[in-house]
């Protein structure tokens, strides 16, 4: 027991810590020791560390108040290295491990000597709620400076500045019953459901399962509760239909019983997840649970009393005092005053005294307390002062005494003389608030219950609260309530249950007297003049602040909360919200239920971003889709462009003579020339491909495309344009007639999935009578486009298809073999040159691709990427949907009247919209070509077009550049653009005023810059 000397508040025995092992940790630069089983908070208390933080607004000294998720003060910065920093860790929920490093989040140069405390002390009278709304307004220009300093003083911990070394993951779980909370209610519910054969998940946020059983004074079957707890956990572990998740917080309850659980897998082991058996393990894991039914056995949080200076270190919750003593063997002080409104809190004084320390008095607000615990306390010789309360704590960095006086709870006045009791610890209890957060996450509003002086959850189908979560507190009743909740839940799912009371452990009956409703304790001075009475410790919200807010007309509880910032901290008002509502109710002269209710949104406790993200980060953030030639492109040093999820070669920079890589412009110019003068090849496998079969396939195409399909013969290909029913262009591509009832549609790369869905939509919802089926074959066929004047020559010896220009015309397709592989070859062209699009099964893509290059050596076959493809197609005036269109462009705007079947019998998709008043309007923006007057100029894509560059700002804009490139063929820049009434303005000049002050001038021309007669693709 050598550690006890170093841990002045550690008891020689008792609690569930392992005193045989010492763990060393550092807090604010000082080294301490604790034991396995400790939390950081219990270890700090064991070491007599009173001051753990400075408060947010007033920089007041703060100590540990609670022992669990409700802790508002002991919020620390954790982490021994920069990359493993974790901001805002609650010391009460952080298991101690060897080497833990933590520090206070506020306080400079340190938490003891904090400079800001002077600002807080001197400034606090000038910082009423919302003071920042009333000042910092003059001069207006200074706000950004004021804000800089405001921001510096705000915030708690700090973000790491280096990437997280750890990984996180998810588990998708399904169960019949999810039980949240493994205290007495949760355990009995889980056991009941497990016996019925249901799939059960039982989770609990603490390091150890057991909830209140871990520190109760009561016995089960006449033995310490731990015996029953261990037996029950062992029994549950035996069931293969039960999953036990300790250290796992249910933090969000979503629709239809979808619950998210955050399992802290390694946070009790170290800063960073240690590896196991040579592999990394996730630091924490998020379980996404779909449950049939949910039992919420989440217990209750104790409410502190609101009295003057109730924030000085040494003010604790009564229940926390018991927890520290009984569970961790730590007494957090020497001499205790307990201020309570109920029987249950008496156990803190009993535990304290049994730990061998002094109890100055129990101060009970009730005039005649009468329960068994009261009797025990009196029998133990503890002084009980009735009808009174601690009205004020004294002390600077630790409580030194308590001012106690008789009070009239209803009249809210101090009625008796003040007695000062020397003490270093004040424990308080104002009753218990059921933990109803999860029950209200999906919108259900809790209701106030006068019986238990707290909010209880309303009924939501499939969700049952059990035990303290709905205000049932006596242990025997809690156990029975859990059994009933578990049985009802699984019965509702069709399981047979047998509830046998004999299964329940025996609990010694205990009489508890009624509690009184006390929230804010009156002071001799009025609230606005009394020393600060804190309601929300983390956000420094006082009873006076709430009173001021109501004075200023903030009457809705939502207004009060927002104006004072009550409940907006990381504890989300677990301690303070009910007290705050009570203070507001008092100020407004109404009851708590009249004042409002309190709803909760996820999360119950904060959740690491990384855990929410799971494995969906870094290399797995989003799929990368590859064509079968990806390895080849990578080996060639291609630069890639993201097109949807695809990686497409953008251009292929080659090494220049000096060994340097070509610039993009150089590479693109070379690739363009190769296609226009020799032969190039493009991996076009990403194009969407849809196989369409059925006797009505042709009719369907006619309805979905703007143009005509009735006469397209097998062996022929046609370009098609697709609109929405609003008349706006949504996709384009070629469709080939494979046989009379069989077509192969191509779509743009990005629209493959949307177009297939579009076809299914119309077929399934409007035209189910058409006999046609659609199947995606995008991934099945690899597509390589061989294009350029030499394309035919290159292919001639590689295929059994007759490539003669008469036998195999432009817009024909043929079947045959290429490099020994069965292939469909399409004579279509997106470059304006002679082109063959070869489709082979993707398995053979690399075989054919490499064969083409083998043969292509003789022709300097040049691979080209999407950038060159864009230049070449733009030279021909071919549009890219999504670049030259933006959802507000009709086929007519594009000048594609030739692709509109105005006289088709069926009113095809998009037709009617073309005759709306706005689509008939003259002066619509229409697609044209632009030739800059200065050929060396490449206009900026997105440049705005004006007719009068001298017009004042705002300058009327008449269109913009959609595509713009340098053409090595034209030896000039050129562009596609939309211009108001552009089709009627051929030859006119327009201007493009740029950000750098230059104004480019360009001529409106046709969209076909190269080979406007289209002869080259027919050769």
């Amino acid at each position: 027991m050598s550690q006890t000397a170093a841990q002045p508040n550690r008891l020689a025995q008792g609690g569930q810590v392992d005193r045989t092992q010492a763990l060393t940790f550092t807090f604010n630069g000082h080294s301490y020791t604790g034991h396995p089983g400790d939390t950081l908070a219990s270890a700090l208390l064991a070491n007599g560390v009173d001051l753990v933080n400075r408060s947010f607004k007033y920089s007041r000294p703060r100590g540990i108040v609670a022992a669990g998720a409700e802790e508002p003060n002991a919020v620390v910065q954790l982490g021994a290295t920069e990359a493993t920093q974790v901001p805002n860790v609650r010391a009460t929920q952080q298991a101690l491990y060897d080497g833990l490093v933590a520090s206070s989040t506020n306080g400079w140069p340190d938490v003891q000597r904090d400079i800001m405390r002077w600002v807080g002390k001197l400034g606090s009278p000038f910082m009423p709620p919302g003071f920042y709304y009333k000042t910092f307004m003059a001069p207006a220009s200074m706000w950004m400076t004021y804000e800089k300093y405001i921001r510096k003083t705000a915030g708690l911990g700090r973000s790491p500045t280096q990437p997280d070394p750890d990984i996180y993951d998810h588990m998708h779980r399904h169960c019949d019953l999810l039980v949240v909370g493994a205290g007495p209610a949760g355990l009995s519910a889980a056991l009941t459901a497990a016996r019925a054969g249901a799939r059960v998940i039982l989770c609990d946020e603490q390091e150890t399962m057991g909830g209140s059983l871990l520190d109760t004074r009561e016995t089960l079957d006449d033995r310490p509760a731990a015996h029953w707890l261990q037996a029950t956990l062992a029994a549950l572990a035996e069931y293969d239909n039960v999953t036990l998740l300790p250290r796992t917080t249910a933090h969000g309850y979503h629709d239809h019983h979808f619950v998210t659980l955050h399992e802290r897998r390694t946070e009790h082991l170290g800063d960073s997840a240690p590896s196991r058996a040579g592999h990394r393990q996730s630091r924490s894991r998020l379980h996404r649970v779909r449950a049939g039914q949910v039992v919420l056995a989440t217990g209750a949080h104790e409410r502190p009393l609101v009295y003057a200076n109730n924030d000085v270190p040494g003010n604790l919750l009564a229940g926390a005092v018991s927890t520290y003593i009984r569970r961790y063997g730590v007494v957090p002080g020497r001499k205790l005053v307990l201020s309570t409104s109920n029987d249950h809190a008496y156990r803190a004084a009993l535990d304290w005294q049994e730990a061998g320390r002094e109890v100055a008095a129990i101060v009970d607000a009730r005039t005649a307390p009468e329960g068994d615990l009261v009797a025990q306390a009196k029998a133990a010789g503890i002084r009980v002062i009735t009808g009174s309360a601690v009205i004020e704590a004294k002390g600077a960095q630790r409580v030194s005494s308590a001012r106690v006086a008789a009070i009239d709870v209803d009249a809210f006045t101090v009625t008796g003389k003040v007695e000062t009791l020397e003490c270093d610890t004040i424990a308080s209890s104002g009753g218990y608030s059921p933990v109803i957060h999860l029950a209200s996450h999906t919108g259900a509003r809790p209701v106030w219950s006068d019986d238990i002086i707290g909010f209880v959850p309303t009924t939501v189908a499939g969700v049952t609260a059990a035990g303290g979560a709905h205000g049932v507190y006596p242990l025997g009743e809690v156990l029975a309530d859990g059994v009933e909740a578990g049985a009802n839940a699984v019965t509702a799912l069709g399981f047979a249950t047998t509830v046998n009371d004999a299964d329940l452990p025996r609990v010694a009956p205990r009489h508890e007297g009624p509690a009184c409703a006390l929230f804010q304790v009156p002071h001799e001075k009025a609230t606005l003049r009394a020393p600060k009475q804190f309601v929300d410790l983390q956000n420094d919200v006082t009873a006076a602040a709430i009173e001021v807010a109501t004075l200023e007309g903030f009457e809705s509880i939502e207004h009060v909360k927002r104006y004072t910032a009550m409940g907006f901290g990381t504890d989300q008002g677990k301690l303070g919200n009910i007290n705050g509502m009570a203070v507001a109710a008092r100020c407004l002269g109404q009851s708590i239920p009249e004042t409002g209710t309190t709803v909760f949104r996820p999360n119950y406790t904060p959740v690491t971003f990384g855990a929410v993200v799971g494995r969906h980060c870094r290399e797995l953030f989003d799929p990368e889709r590859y064509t079968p030639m990806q390895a080849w492109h990578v080996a060639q040093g291609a630069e890639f462009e993201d097109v949807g999820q695809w990686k497409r070669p953008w251009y292929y920079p080659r090494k220049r003579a000096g060994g340097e890589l070509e610039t993009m412009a150089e590479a693109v110019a070379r690739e363009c020339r190769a296609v226009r003068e020799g032969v190039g090849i493009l991996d076009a496998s990403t194009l969407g491909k849809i196989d369409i079969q059925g006797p009505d396939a042709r009719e369907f195409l006619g309805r979905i495309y703007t143009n005509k399909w009735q006469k397209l013969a097998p062996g022929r290909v046609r370009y098609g344009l697709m609109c929405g029913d609003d008349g706006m262009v949504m996709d384009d591509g070629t469709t080939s007639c494979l046989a009379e009832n069989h077509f192969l549609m191509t779509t743009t790369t990005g629209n493959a999935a949307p177009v297939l869905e579009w076809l299914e939509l119309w077929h399934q919802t409007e035209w189910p009578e058409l006999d046609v089926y659609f199947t995606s074959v995008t991934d099945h066929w690899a597509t390589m486009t061989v294009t350029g004047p030499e394309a035919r020559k290159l292919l001639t010896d590689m295929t059994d298809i007759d490539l003669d220009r008469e036998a195999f015309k432009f817009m024909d397709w043929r079947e045959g073999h290429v490099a020994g592989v069965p292939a469909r070859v399409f004579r279509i062209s997106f470059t304006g040159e002679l082109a063959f699009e070869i489709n082979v099964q993707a398995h053979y893509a690399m075989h054919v691709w490499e064969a083409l290059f083998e043969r292509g050596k003789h022709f300097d076959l040049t691979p080209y990427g999407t950038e060159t493809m864009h230049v070449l197609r733009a030279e021909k005036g071919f549009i890219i949907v999504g670049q030259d269109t933006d959802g507000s462009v009709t086929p007519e705007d594009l000048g594609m009247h030739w692709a509109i079947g105005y006289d088709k019998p069926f009113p095809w998709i998009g037709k009617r919209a073309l005759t709306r008043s706005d689509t008939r309007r003259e002066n619509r923006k229409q697609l044209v070509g632009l030739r800059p007057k200065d050929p060396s100029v490449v206009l900026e894509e997105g440049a705005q077009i004006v007719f009068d560059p001298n017009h004042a700002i705002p300058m009327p804009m008449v269109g913009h550049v959609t595509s713009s490139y340098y053409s090595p063929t034209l030896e000039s820049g050129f562009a596609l653009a939309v211009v108001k009434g552009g089709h009627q303005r051929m030859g006119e000049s327009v201007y493009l005023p740029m950000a750098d002050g230059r104004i480019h001038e360009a001529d409106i021309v046709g969209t076909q810059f190269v080979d406007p007669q289209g002869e080259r693709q027919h050769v």
Partner: protein
Amino acid sequence: MFHIYCPYCEEHREEEEFHPKGQAHIARPEDPDACSDEAWGDYLFFRDNPRGIHHEMWLHAVGCRKFFNITRHTVSYEILETYKMGEQPTVGAEHLAREEKTAREGKTDSVQVAEGGQQAVGASDAALASVKGAQA
């Protein structure tokens, strides 16, 4: 996150497999050329947006790829039925009335709810509008 019964897969699946596709039972006019600009605009853009029972179309996108219909409450998010394309809903206005009563009793948030009886025009039309889909 919703748990949705797919009437084609005949089991409940997670919402992530589905895409909502807006109001159900929107029929494309038989003769678009005969539609006024107003009628065509109504067909394209005007949708029921009830606070209560809503008939909507969903797609089992990562699953059987079938479109189908859901009757869902837009406040409680309770799914009251799912049914195949071409079928008609069985749940409608009477549920709306019942749910509104629940809402007034404070089970849902306090945003205003159309109440019948008090106004010259309004709530009854709104209630009707919310089930109009059934006729389309």
